């Protein structure tokens, strides 16, 4: 039973290694195998989540070495929750991609798309369960390269250019991260998170500046990778140039993995000394700027996927805000927003992808009059947009509600105000496309002829995502119970 989280990672890695071989012998089998393996990883994560919610957190020792010597994998409720989110969203998106990549990618790199997706899945799950700083770094690197790979697999010059900038910036981030780990190792002599935090009090007394430097580099490193506001410049290009399923995974999951990792490190490594350092204030300030300015920038966009990418910048700000506020309900709201935003943003990107699949149009104005022609796609889009704005009974509302409650709990009602203001801003850029899709008139009727609904294999994952969004909105206690929060 305890092997399951590691097996979920390992089975995805094994799949990734074998996909090129399978593709060589049976071309059509590769995508099926990839989806099947991600489904298997989903089963393993679900079993882990059930186990953790029943018997509590556990740690798994790789190679049977006790912890300061070996590598520890630590799975608590939050990691199990993250594993479940990662594997389920990836599974659904890969199901969608089975049809979509036929249209969006050329034949030659298709097998690599599946390989990279499985590597991304494995590394994301590895990141959330890492109990060792260097192991965390290794998995962060795999996910950075694999994420870049899923963009450049498209091969047009816009995608390649965006990938290059993403790669350079995220390498800058990993340099900062490794430097931070080096400084921490120098002053504490350990790599295991628990053991570092045991030594850190002494280190804070003897070598305080080293710890400050390590903390700064850690925040900057993860901040670049997770597009914390002033460091977000790579995100809109990278996420809008990628193929639609990759955008869904990148925006919905990859960015948030790093936020989760950052806060894991902050609480589990720097926990005993963090009280004296105003890192949370800085993060809150940046998150506020992200929430407001991300929405403002999203309003100015003409292209649908670019607008969605800017909206990710804003939504990442919410997650940062929730986790940095620190109150119980705020953290629960932040974790829940990771789930709801993953659901919303991936269904939005998948809907945008299926519009692209059917019409080849990518601007917001091109959505006009599409509602009656593609009812399911635009229905999913509208539902997710409504949830993004925060319409009650949908997932987005619940997580924002908990964030606002948490802000008042922490004695910082100002942030609750920010959340409300930003909801209005979100409405300003999400309502026009929805309204024009259902009530607008197609400017040129000859263009719209023959456009109908996308194939079922693309619709089913989108519908499942929407149902999940509704489910989270109607029964938030399920998710909160999984997180171990009773309120």
């Amino acid at each position, binding site marked *: 039973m305890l092997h399951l989280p590691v097996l979920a990672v390992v089975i995805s890695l*094994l799949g990734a290694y074998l996909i090129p071989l399978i593709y060589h012998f049976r071309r059509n089998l590769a995508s099926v195998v990839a989806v099947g393996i991600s489904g298997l990883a989903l089963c393993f994560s679900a079993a882990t989540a059930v186990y953790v919610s029943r018997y509590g957190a556990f740690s798994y020792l790789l190679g049977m070495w006790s912890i300061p010597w070996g590598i520890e994998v630590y799975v608590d409720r939050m990691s199990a929750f993250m594993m479940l989110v990662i594997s389920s969203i990836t599974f659904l998106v890969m199901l969608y991609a089975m049809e979509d990549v036929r249209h969006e990618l050329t034949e030659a790199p298709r097998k690599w798309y599946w390989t990279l997706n499985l590597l991304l899945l494995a590394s994301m799950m590895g990141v959330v369960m890492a109990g060792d700083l260097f192991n965390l770094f290794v998995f962060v690197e795999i996910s950075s390269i694999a994420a870049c790979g899923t963009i450049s697999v498209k091969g047009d010059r816009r995608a390649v250019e965006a990938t290059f900038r993403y790669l350079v910036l995220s390498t800058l981030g990993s340099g900062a991260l490794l430097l931070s780990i080096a400084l921490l190792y120098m002053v504490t002599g350990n790599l295991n998170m628990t053991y570092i935090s045991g030594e850190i009090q002494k280190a804070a007394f003897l070598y305080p500046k080293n710890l400050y430097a390590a903390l700064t580099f850690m925040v900057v490193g993860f901040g670049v990778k997770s597009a914390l506001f002033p460091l977000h410049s790579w995100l809109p290009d990278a996420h809008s140039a990628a193929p639609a399923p990759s955008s869904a995974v990148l925006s919905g999951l990859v960015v948030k993995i790093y936020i989760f990792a950052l806060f894991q490190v902050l609480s589990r490594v720097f926990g005993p000394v963090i009280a004296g350092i105003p890192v949370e204030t800085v993060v809150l300030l940046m998150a506020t700027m992200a929430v407001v300015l991300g929405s403002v920038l999203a309003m100015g966009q003409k292209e649908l996927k670019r607008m969605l990418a800017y909206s990710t910048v804003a939504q990442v700000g919410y997650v940062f805000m929730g986790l940095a506020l620190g109150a119980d309900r705020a953290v629960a709201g932040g974790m829940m927003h990771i789930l709801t935003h993953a659901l919303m943003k991936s269904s939005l990107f998948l809907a945008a992808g299926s519009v692209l699949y059917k019409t080849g149009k990518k601007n917001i104005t091109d959505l006009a009059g599409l509602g009656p022609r593609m009812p399911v796609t635009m229905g999913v889009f509208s539902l997710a947009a409504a949830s993004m704005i925060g319409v009650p009974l949908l997932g987005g509302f619940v997580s924002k509600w908990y964030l606002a409650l948490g802000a008042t709990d922490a004695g910082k009602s100002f942030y609750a105000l920010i959340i409300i203001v930003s909801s209005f801003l979100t409405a300003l850029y999400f309502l026009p496309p929805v309204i024009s899709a259902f009530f607008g008139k197609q400017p040129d009727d000859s263009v719209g002829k023959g456009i109908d609904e996308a194939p079922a294999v693309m619709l089913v994952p989108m519908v499942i995502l929407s149902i999940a969004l509704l489910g989270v909105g109607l029964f938030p206690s399920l998710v909160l119970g999984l997180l171990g929060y009773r309120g």
Partner: protein
Amino acid sequence: MNDMVVQIITRILIPFIEVFAVYVIFHGHISPGGSFSGGAILGASFVLATLVFGTARFNRKFGHMVSQLVESVGGSWYILVGLFGILAGANFLTNKLAGFGMGRPGYLFSAGAIPVITIGLGLKVGSTMVTLFHGLIEEEENHGDH
């Protein structure tokens, strides 16, 4: 590069480089070196061969399929050795407690799973170097698809 001196010297040199690479890979657990260094040396010998004899002639002997195969099998090999630990009732990637023979320390056949992993990994790293190099240089030559 159609220079006879270079070609002949390369022909003489390559076996020595490869034997040295194999030595470094096999002796990873008793001397400095190991899979990554040995694999890099192995890859360097293939890179040298490509530089001297050209990609077309090299590909006839060592095609993309071969390097792909080595790549996938090398990686899977590592995972399978790790999974053996679970089968033996221990954790993933367990060495001694999973029942790998320890041998006499300091001799070639010792250290249980370490040399077993090293061999697969060394070959994998070697073929990785070749694939990366070829990926970068074949861009320049338009010899159809592969």
